[in-house]
């Protein structure tokens, strides 16, 4: 079987993986690297549960061949908390009951992080737009919007 070696930065660490050419970033993360926070909700690019950051941009990892991110920086939820502490987004999601079944949560947090990284004081409308590609079936979204607003406040302090 053909393999190709892809070198990229994952959560701050240089990583090289030998994979078959069309292996997606999501499959590489979950199955090759055993980082299971990134979820497999659809493989159709429709639900957002596979969202990670590639060079800071929210990206659907389920449709992205690993080979296309050669040399780029990937951040997953596992890379968000530092030295055991929680990122303010994680704290806010926890405090605001913004996760029920938890399946959309990793993708939702990563999409929210991308938003707050580029817009530190988003309006509620801007939060809604930024998260439109992340489906949640449990919470009805309102606690998630509140959590992102809460995180923005915490980050500004």
């Amino acid at each position, binding site marked *: 079987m053909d393999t190709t070696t892809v070198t990229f930065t994952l959560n701050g660490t240089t990583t090289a993986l030998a994979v078959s050419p069309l292996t997606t970033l999501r499959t590489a993360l979950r199955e090759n690297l055993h980082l299971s926070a990134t979820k497999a909700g*659809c493989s*159709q690019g*429709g*639900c957002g549960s596979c969202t990670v950051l590639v060079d800071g941009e929210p990206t659907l990892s389920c449709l992205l061949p690993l080979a296309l991110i050669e040399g780029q920086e990937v951040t997953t939820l596992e890379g968000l908390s530092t030295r055991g502490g929680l990122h303010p987004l994680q704290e806010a999601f926890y405090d605001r*009951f913004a996760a*029920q*079944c*938890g*399946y959309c949560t990793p993708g939702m947090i990563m999409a929210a992080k991308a938003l707050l990284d580029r817009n530190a004081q988003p309006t509620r409308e801007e*939060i*809604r*737009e930024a*998260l*439109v*590609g*992340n*489906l*949640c*079936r*449990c*919470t*009805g*979204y*309102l*606690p*998630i*919007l509140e959590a992102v607003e809460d995180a923005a406040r915490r980050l500004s302090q």
Partner: protein
Amino acid sequence: MTRVRGRGIASVNYPTGMNLGGDPTQALIFCQPTGSFTVKLSSTDLGQGLKTVIGQIAAETLGVPLEGVIIDTGDTDSAPHCMGTFASRATHRVGNAVIMAAEEAKRALLEVAADEMEAAPQDLVVENGEVHVKGSPDRKLSVLDVALAAHFKYGRTISGRGIFLKPKGGVDPETGACDPDSTEAHATAVAEVEVDTETGEVTVLRLFGAYEVGRQVNPAMVEGQIVGGAVMGMGHALMETVFPYYPAQDHHTSSFGEYIVPTAMDAPQIETVVLEYPSSNGPYGVKGVGEMTANSPVPAIVNAIYDAVGVWVTDLPVTPEKVLRALEDKDRALSGS
């Protein structure tokens, strides 16, 4: 372009428990020599938070802090039978089974404490992880000390068994007479919508809801069911179908591009109030809430559409296409053509 607003209401009931009963749940509780209690269940948490609320019910009944309870669920080798999480049954049945088990465990705890403290068990209470004599808060022992004494000094167990079963009833085939539920929860929803008469699109602006749930174990989680249910109900009313031309199989949906569910941009403003009228047979009066919350908004939205533009669209989902056709039919009827 005309956007017309309307308001609609709907009031509903919802039964707690599997229809006709026959859906038991068992629970086991045991106390470790560390004073920590473990609740063994084979129940499932679907995200609604069962593990959390059962922890609260166990801690409340035992008289220990929340951290003093471990909820262990999901292994048929090591936990007794639970019928499952559905039919708004879980908090009700699992809760009742856990209360029964916790009360037995507490009785065993108090009997050991009574011997240790030279008091009568009926004169003792457990509060916040300590056993003390009623009216003499200084005469006390920690649950940890009682548990150590039980295990290593007296050789006695501190554990409990619980089960809740509403026995399965039948249905009279001629009349339909039956006993369908343990209790009924209630809700009233008010929907405010805006209908665009050019595109047929319906936007839900605000949802109000009053939910009567017997007793809230965890208000934030009840709110979670209310808001989550409301948005799912809105999707049902306006967007969702597997077969857009049902009963024809055409365009059978296969992806999120075809099956439309609400997104973060669709969630309306939602205001709620929760009422508590304890049921006679729920744990601390609990009634189920998980399903009712997705039901009440649906007819409220359809009624609001009628209020706005005077058409009944009673074939779900109420898509823009259906609204426009209904408006056209109404115009044609009015103009007599």
